[in-house]
């Protein structure tokens, strides 16, 4: 079992459509980054759909606070949400001043409440810069 090296980011296109991408599969507790090259510093345009694949256990999803610099408001801390068993949520977008790392990445963590490995599917979308 292994989580993907990074979350796949699907760029949305203004006045167009994209087929829903294949979801990244999370099968292990831990952090998975969104790469700087995929994010382009645009945490304010990232939206993350998470579906807890565990029908018994809740899943904690943590968008980890960034590093200062550049995230001057990182002291506010991480964004932690608990998804109920089989629950789903749409996360974000996020404030770069709080969540971006020094290398331009953003980290998302997955952990089950009772210590069994996380099972989730994740799709990340990046809205276009301006329409």
């Amino acid at each position, binding site marked *: 079992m292994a989580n993907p090296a990074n979350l796949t980011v699907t760029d949305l296109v*203004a*006045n167009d459509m994209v087929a*829903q991408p294949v979801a990244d599969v999370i099968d292990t507790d831990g952090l998975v980054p969104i790469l700087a090259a995929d994010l382009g510093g645009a945490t304010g345009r990232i939206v993350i759909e998470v579906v807890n694949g565990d029908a018994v256990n809740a899943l904690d999803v943590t968008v980890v606070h960034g590093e200062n610099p550049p995230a001057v408001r990182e002291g506010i801390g991480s*964004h932690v949400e608990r998804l109920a068993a089989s629950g*789903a949520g749409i996360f974000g977008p996020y404030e770069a001043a709080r969540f971006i790392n020094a290398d331009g990445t953003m980290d998302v963590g997955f952990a089950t409440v009772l210590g069994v490995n996380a099972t989730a599917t994740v799709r990340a979308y990046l809205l276009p810069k301006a329409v």
Partner: protein
Amino acid sequence: MANPAKITVRQLAANGRLPLPAADTIDTTGVVPILGADMAARVGSLVLEVLSTSAPQSITVLQGDNPPAARQSLGNLVLNCDAVRASLATALAGADNDLVFTAVNGGVAGNAITITYTDAGPGQALAVGVVGTDIDVTLETDGAGAIQSTAADIATEIAATPAAAALVTAVNAAGNDGSGVVIAMVQTPLAGGASASYILGPFDGSQLLQDDGSLQLSCVVVAGQTMTVRCYQAPKAV
């Protein structure tokens, strides 16, 4: 059955989480608006998540009014939201005799369609019979019982039989020209039909915004099928 009076807009939460909301269900061809009051006319931050159970199904975002849509002459924005059509590629012995049958309507319903080539003995004429979603092709034979029907003959007969043409189209398989005589084929279902999901938008208000601040979605839905829609709006600034 009836469409909702409007598409529900869910506001995404900056630095937060929105529980996955219930979807609006479009089950009838017609226009459904996204109200200006629900999205403050900020169509550039709207995204639609659409699950389509059939094909051909589409959402056309109608061109806006000028003003405010100064670029409304660019016209409507047509977004085809087709489900995956089931298909069957025959693999008969012999050359140039294989066809690909494709369901006219997409989605899982197409997987119920079956094709049979029946060798009914000497002196038969080519005929296509349809019972429900079962298509039975009776092959033409000569007086000695030799099959005379080619793949091209069958494709033509399928197209000429309304009940069959309403279910499938038939074209030559890759590398086949249709000239080959077919052989009998047991009842075989089409496969691979499935619903499909799409992410639509965001949208250009200067092309699509109505003078009342709304977007107008003209939805085409196959009878008895649906498109389910979740509409999200990103916050103004993060």
